[in-house]
């Protein structure tokens, strides 16, 4: 009875600031463009991108610490499903600390370029980089290929998808350290280290015949393709914001009410006078491109030129879509490699993050400098810094938001949190048999 009275009172006197939000036709149109999220785009350069067996193999490897040099780190160490597929840290730390924040794996399959600087053009090309980075997993393509070749279940799954593995990989040429469990030596590392020809990994790599090096590169690309197939499943599920947009589309008041008044006001600022959708556009809430938003220098971190070196790296990457490991070198999607260009404004640019599920993966920005979404919104409201590198893009204007408007935008960003992913995607599968 008391509850009924309260409900009646609420009906009669809506709390101040909770009046229904009216949207102009322009705001409504801008909001409709942000939902729903379609499936990720196809990948012509990865023949197994949509193959469930490949996804299963990729998922197994995503959680497999044997790919790291010390056997203690996997992709999931930094891309932890419980932390929004990121790590909760300001900057990533694998074997040692890096200089950039770990991006979430969620929705990576929608991106045109991978990494903060876009130095990879596909998820399968991307996958090989952290495995070999000495600060991340510190492993190598040779170790990866041997781990796959010397584990009976992995080998079977791999060969079913990609054909026979070269015989020499089955020989255990370990680093002499006993493997936990059966005490056999763990496979050693080998990879190109162009700047350090004397590095033990480089020496091991140079010790292989050219034909064998190419065979290892091919296995490594295929492992990347399996990891790609898995990560294509790691996408945002519908969020309250999507219900709200469906309600706007169908003029359904109950669905519109999926967002509270504060989040609705935030949505109006986001898609309206805030201009946020200039870059956070489309259902991904990212333009998949790069911008210099003018963040100031950060003590303890080097100046970071971002996209500028990334362009040269991706064009020169032997694992890119035009390279010999691509399943369709002439694919239309590879045109992006021909047309992308370094320009003065590329200096200090970083990729626009998707905002779907953004509340799950604090802290924020390429160097993780902001602990809360509120700090991010206040940054765009005040633009306090001078760009550490290059120039702030002039698209950005101080939003000069009130405290209440900041809270509204944060409420909107939190309404982008989708349903939980199914549990089976969040851990290593118990077997490699197809699901």
């Amino acid at each position, binding site marked *: 009875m008391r509850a009924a009275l309260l409900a009646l009172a609420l009906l009669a006197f809506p709390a101040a600031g909770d009046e229904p939000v009216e949207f102009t036709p322009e705001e409504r149109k801008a909001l409709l463009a942000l939902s729903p999220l379609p499936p990720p785009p196809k990948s012509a350069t990865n023949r197994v991108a949509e193959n469930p067996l490949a996804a299963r193999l990729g998922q197994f490897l995503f959680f497999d610490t044997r790919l790291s040099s010390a056997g203690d780190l996997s992709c999931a160490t930094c891309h932890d499903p419980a932390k929004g597929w990121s790590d909760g840290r300001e900057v990533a730390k694998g074997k040692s600390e890096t200089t950039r924040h770990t991006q979430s794996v969620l929705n990576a399959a929608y991106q045109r370029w991978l990494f903060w600087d876009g130095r990879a053009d596909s998820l399968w090309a991307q996958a090989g980089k952290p495995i070999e980075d000495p600060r991340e997993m510190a492993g190598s393509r040779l170790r990866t290929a041997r781990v796959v070749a010397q584990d009976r279940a992995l080998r079977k799954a791999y060969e079913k998808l990609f054909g026979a593995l070269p015989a020499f990989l089955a020989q255990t040429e370990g680093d002499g350290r006993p493997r936990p469990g059966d005490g056999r030596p763990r496979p050693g590392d080998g990879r190109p280290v162009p700047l350090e020809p004397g590095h033990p990994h480089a020496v091991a790599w140079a010790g292989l015949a050219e034909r064998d090096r190419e065979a290892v590169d091919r296995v490594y690309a295929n492992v990347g393709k399996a990891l790609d197939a898995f990560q294509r499943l790691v996408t945002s599920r519908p969020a309250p914001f999507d219900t709200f947009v469906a309600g706007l589309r169908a003029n359904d008041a109950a669905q519109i009410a999926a967002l509270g008044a504060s989040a609705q006001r935030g949505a109006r600022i986001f898609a309206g006078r805030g201009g946020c*959708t*200039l*870059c956070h*556009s*489309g259902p991904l809430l990212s*333009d*998949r*491109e*790069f911008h210099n938003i003018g963040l100031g220098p950060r003590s303890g971190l080097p100046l970071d030129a971002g996209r500028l070196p990334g362009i040269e790296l991706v064009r020169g990457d032997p694992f890119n879509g035009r390279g010999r490991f691509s399943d369709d070198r002439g694919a239309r999607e590879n*045109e*992006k490699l*021909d*047309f*992308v*260009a370094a*320009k003065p*404004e*590329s200096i200090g640019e970083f990729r626009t993050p998707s905002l779907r599920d953004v509340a799950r993966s604090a802290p924020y920005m390429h160097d993780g400098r902001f602990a809360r979404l509120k700090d991010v919104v206040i940054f765009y409201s005040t633009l306090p810094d001078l760009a550490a590198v290059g120039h702030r*893009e*002039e*698209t950005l204007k101080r939003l000069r938001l009130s405290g209440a408007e900041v809270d509204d935008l944060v409420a909107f960003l939190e309404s982008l949190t989708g349903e939980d992913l199914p549990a089976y995607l969040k851990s290593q599968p118990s077997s490699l048999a197809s699901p």
Partner: protein
Amino acid sequence: MRYLVLAFVLTFAILLSGCQSASPAPPVPAPTERRQATGDGLWEIVLTTDPDPIPSNEHFHVSLTLVPKTKDAGPRPEIEAVDAYMPDHRHGMRTQPRFVKGADGRYRAEGLLFHMSGYWEIFVAVKTARGQEGLVFPVTLE
């Protein structure tokens, strides 16, 4: 009632098609042609895009044709470059278009990409008998 309306619409459609031509083929939408004249008024650049209309945040290509405005328009100008900017935001594209010169005053620029909605200008650098000039084709991307 519904049949009455249908009959009316059909009759009207038949009358209408009779007025135009006997061809039953559906009309092919004409390409969007954007035109700008050179400073001396002697030549016009006709710009079309593929796809048409210009897609948002996807690659597109531009075709340019030089057309004389008068019988004695003089030597045909040369198109030397194509680029695009958002003047209000003071930035350009993330891509560098590939510029291809064809025969008979036809050109093609491949790989433009408008990554942001709003007001863009496609800039075409032309060399005429009088010197170099830039022609601007305004485009508003929804």
